[in-house]
């Protein structure tokens, strides 16, 4: 067996010699045979002739001997050469097929790279499945919350199930770096000193944090990320040990992180430049909502065991606490937490995109089948000459493979070109995951696999069909003219499936776009035009006394109001349309439990700035802003919920667990949290409580007369003039609308559906054009026999239109089943919205009719006389 292979291989290299030997042998054989014949008495000429006849065809012998030596590669090479010749002869066909496949494979590659980086690839840490989030859990509401009070944190750190528990900020802090030429916000993250150990990451240079750097005083250190190290210090190792001046004091650079390090939070689009140890003041409860907890399970410990231990610890702590303050916690694997809200949407997108290569395959398959009919004669001859049917099928599959490879390569190149543009479209607030999205080895493997699968899908039927050629029928002369009327080669079944798929995509995209349009029409309830905000942070170091804080805030108010072009300015602790935790505790008479409602501390002009009118009672005046809030304004939802049927004015509620305030006014509901979230019951109290920590980081919301960049600059200048160390960013409200992700999905699904419909249209057009060109003779005959041109046109159109309609109905039915999966992406649009389905049906039929009509129109230009003379 091995010898056989070796000998064959050896023979490959001695091709010429073997050919020469064979010639010699054949010549010798013929001579001997001729001699023998002559010896038997035949005349010379006859002797040779008989010898040749007896020999039985020298050429065939040569071919057969060559076949003996033919290796697999030889026949493959032959197939490839033949396929290339076929492509050269039919350039248009080849181009159309390759482009169709390239579109499908390219689109699928792009989206796969996104989905792979986000959902499939493991997180960039060692043994990432051991990392879990510890999240707060409210059993009554079955909802999670962030942040863990310090007693639990301390206890969890001692748990046996965990190798390490770390806290880290989810929203980047903006410590202020004092450069020679001014202050600068750097993006830093405050983390437990053991975070890197929990993530199993080593520093690249320098050292990790030490455990004692958790205490105030020892925490004057930072670790830089690789990017920051390169950008700010040019990658100079001398940066380690350098002192950086921050607004709150100097810090020493002690280490640099490796380039592959990813901060384990994706809440914002910023990546931190440095890590700062969290100096926990264990005497005060840490500002819990800003810290996430992360833990690494010890090897061998299952999640359920760790959860059980966490439950034990919490119940031990809870035993000494009143019901309202008890804490419950759940462990969630980090990967799951990061992708929680995106998994369905991304998988849906991926599923939709994968329909494109599928539709492309069906198109190409149809094209090959139609072409196969034209090649039937060629196939028949080859079979008659001895080619095996398997060999024919292999030949066609080789052609399909070459088409797919060309399409695949072109598609991958396309995806390299498209992907950056696609990622740029991504709303910056929707960071997908920790892994970088790029077309890497894994994605290329996917493209390769997809290419091979497309080969099988589109090549199988044509190859099988060709191998079943009936020789006799094909070789009969004149067959091409008298072909069975209507036999097209292409299969309506494929067209039906294509149309069904495209219809499902069209309906899905239609629903998402519809929902997006509705979102766009949503009114947030307050006027967002010409509205902007700017945020300040007043550190204790530079504003040690509350009075200095109050003075600054008042100062800023006056300065901003004095700017020409500013209509009104107000300050608020949690500005609208930011993803903030605005919950405050409110005690309402008649309700035993403390309510956790939206509570905002605002200055008097807040409602005017946002354009919220007073529904009843009155709004705040400047006099209400004192050192203790005494009044409150509530919104309509809250009034309805807690005082149904009666007026809440005059009622007293207790806010922040200490201030009894009287309800003096009601304002309408606004969507303050996010655009999609329906308004919640909210209360507003005037700002003024000196102990309210948020006084140090108020946001000023400003309504300007027009959208004038000069005014925004003036605001920034005034702020700088008030405090040079402040870092100023004036954010316009039109910039920060929250439903960018819906827009993203709407665009993507829309493009996908448009492509799908286009591909189907191209398929129909190609088929129609081809059959018109193939059946020119028949058309001429019909026209000559008296048929009107438009009748013939209709005849050519109706078959494909019929197939498309069947597919559309099938697709509509499938859509009804499938679109309920889109529910998470839809806003106030039912998955079976009849308007969307109707519009899709009509538009698809229109496109299909056009696609069939345009090529068929040529029929009207056919001169019957010319047509009858063609072959």
């Amino acid at each position: 067996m091995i010898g056989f292979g070796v000998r064959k291989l050896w023979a490959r290299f001695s091709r010429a010699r073997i050919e020469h030997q064979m010639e010699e042998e054949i010549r010798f054989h013929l001579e001997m045979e001729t001699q023998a014949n002559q010896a038997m008495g035949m005349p010379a000429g006859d002797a040779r002739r008989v010898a040749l006849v007896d020999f039985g065809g020298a050429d065939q012998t040569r071919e057969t001997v060559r076949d003996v030596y033919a290796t697999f590669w030889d026949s493959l090479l032959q197939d490839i050469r033949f396929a290339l010749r076929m492509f050269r002869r039919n350039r248009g066909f080849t181009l159309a097929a390759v482009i169709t496949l390239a579109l499908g494979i390219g689109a699928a590659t792009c989206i796969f790279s996104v989905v792979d980086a986000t959902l499939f690839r493991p997180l960039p840490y060692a043994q990432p499945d051991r990392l879990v989030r510890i999240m707060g859990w409210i059993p009554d509401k079955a909802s999670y919350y962030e942040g863990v009070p310090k007693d639990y944190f301390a206890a969890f750190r001692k748990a046996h199930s965990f190798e390490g528990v770390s806290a880290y900020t989810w929203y980047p802090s903006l410590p202020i770096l004092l450069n020679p030429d001014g202050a600068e916000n750097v993006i830093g993250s405050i983390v437990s000193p053991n975070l890197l150990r929990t993530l199993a990451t080593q520093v690249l240079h320098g050292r990790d944090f030490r455990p004692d750097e958790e205490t105030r005083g020892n925490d004057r250190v930072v670790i830089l990320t690789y990017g920051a190290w390169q950008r700010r210090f040019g990658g100079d190792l001398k940066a380690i040990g350098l002192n950086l001046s921050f607004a709150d004091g100097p810090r020493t650079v002690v280490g640099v992180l490796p380039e592959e390090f990813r901060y384990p939070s994706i809440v914002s689009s910023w990546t931190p430049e440095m890590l700062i140890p969290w100096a926990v003041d264990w005497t005060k409860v840490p500002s819990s909502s800003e810290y996430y907890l992360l833990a690494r399970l010890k090897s061998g410990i299952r999640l359920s065991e760790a959860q059980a231990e966490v439950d034990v610890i919490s119940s031990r702590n809870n035993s000494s606490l009143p019901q309202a303050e008890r804490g419950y916690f759940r462990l969630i694997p980090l990967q799951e937490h990061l992708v929680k809200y995106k998994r369905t949407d991304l998988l849906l997108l991926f599923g939709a995109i994968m329909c494109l290569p599928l539709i492309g395959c069906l198109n190409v398959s149809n094209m090959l089948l139609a072409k196969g009919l034209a090649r039937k004669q060629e196939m028949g001859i080859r079979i008659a000459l001895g080619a095996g049917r398997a060999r024919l099928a292999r030949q066609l599959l080789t052609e399909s493979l070459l088409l797919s490879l060309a399409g695949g390569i072109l598609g991958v190149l396309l995806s390299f070109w498209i992907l950056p543009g696609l990622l740029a479209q991504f709303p910056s607030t929707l960071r997908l995951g920790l892994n970088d999205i790029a077309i890497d080895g894994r994605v290329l493997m996917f493209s390769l696999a997809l290419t091979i699968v497309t080969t099988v899908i589109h090549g199988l039927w044509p190859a099988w069909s060709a191998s079943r050629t009936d020789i006799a029928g094909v070789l009969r002369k004149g067959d091409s003219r008298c072909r069975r009327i209507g036999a097209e080669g292409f299969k309506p079944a494929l067209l039906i499936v294509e149309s069904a798929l495209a219809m499902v995509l069209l309906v899905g995209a239609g629903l998402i776009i519809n929902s997006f349009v509705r979102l766009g029409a949503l009114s947030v309830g307050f006027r967002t035009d010409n509205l902007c905000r700017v945020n300040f942070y007043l550190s204790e170091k530079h504003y040690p006394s509350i009075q200095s804080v109050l003075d600054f805030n008042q100062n800023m108010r006056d300065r901003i109001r004095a700017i020409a072009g500013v209509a009104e300015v107000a300050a608020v602790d949690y500005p609208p349309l930011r993803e903030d935790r605005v919950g405050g505790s409110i005690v309402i008479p008649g309700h035993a439990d403390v309510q956790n409602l939206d509570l905002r501390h605002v200055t008097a002009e807040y409602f005017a700035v946002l354009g919220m009118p007073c529904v009843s009672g009155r709004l705040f005046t400047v006099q209400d802003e004192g050192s203790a809030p005494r009044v409150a304004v509530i919104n309509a939802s809250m009034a309805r919920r807690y005082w149904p049927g009666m007026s809440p004015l005059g009622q007293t509620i207790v806010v922040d667990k200490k201030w009894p305030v009287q309800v003096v006014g009601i304002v309408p509901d606004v969507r303050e949290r996010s655009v999609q979230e329906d308004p919640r019951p909210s209360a507003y109290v005037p700002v003024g409580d000196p102990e309210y920590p948020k006084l140090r980081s108020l946001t000023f919301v400003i309504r300007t007369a027009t959208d004038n960049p000069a005014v925004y600059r003036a605001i920034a200048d005034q702020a700088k003039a008030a405090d040079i160390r402040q870092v100023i960013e004036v954010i316009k409200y039109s910039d920060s609308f929250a439903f960018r992700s819906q827009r993203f999905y709407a665009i993507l699904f829309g493009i996908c559906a448009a492509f799908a419909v286009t591909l189907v249209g191209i398929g129909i057009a190609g088929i129609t054009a081809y059959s018109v060109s193939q059946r020119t003779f028949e058309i001429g005959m019909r026209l000559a026999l008296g048929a009107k041109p438009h009748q013939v046109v209709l005849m050519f159109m109706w078959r494909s239109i019929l197939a498309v309609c069947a597919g559309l109905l099938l697709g509509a039915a499938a859509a009804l089943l499938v679109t309920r999966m889109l529910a998470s992406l839809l806003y106030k649009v039912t998955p079976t919205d009849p308007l969307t389905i109707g519009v899709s049906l009509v538009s698809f039929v229109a496109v299909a009719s056009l696609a069939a009509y345009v090529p068929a129109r040529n029929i009207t230009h056919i001169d019957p006389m010319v047509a009858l003379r063609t072959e």
Partner: protein
Amino acid sequence: MTKSSISLLQGTLDLLILKTLAPGPMHGWGISQRIRQVSEEFLRVNQGSLYPALHRMELKGWIVSREGITEEHRPVRFYRLTATGRRRLGEQVRDWDHMVMAIGNVLKAT
């Protein structure tokens, strides 16, 4: 081969060739002549089958070929059995005998 036996198994042709080469080396024409003679003109090997068969058997290692000289001092290729070929010949003869007996049994049965 007679025209009606185009479908004669490849293996049978191999067997005939192997057997013909058993006494000693021979060139291609000689092999076909010998088979004709011994079978009394009944089996005429189509050269289109002979040479491919010879090359195939050489690839399989049953025969080897070498340049040689005929009695008339003409250069020609000679084929010779190898040890493997000889073994193969024995096996094939046994198989042939079995088959003949089996077919005979079937034909004799009433």
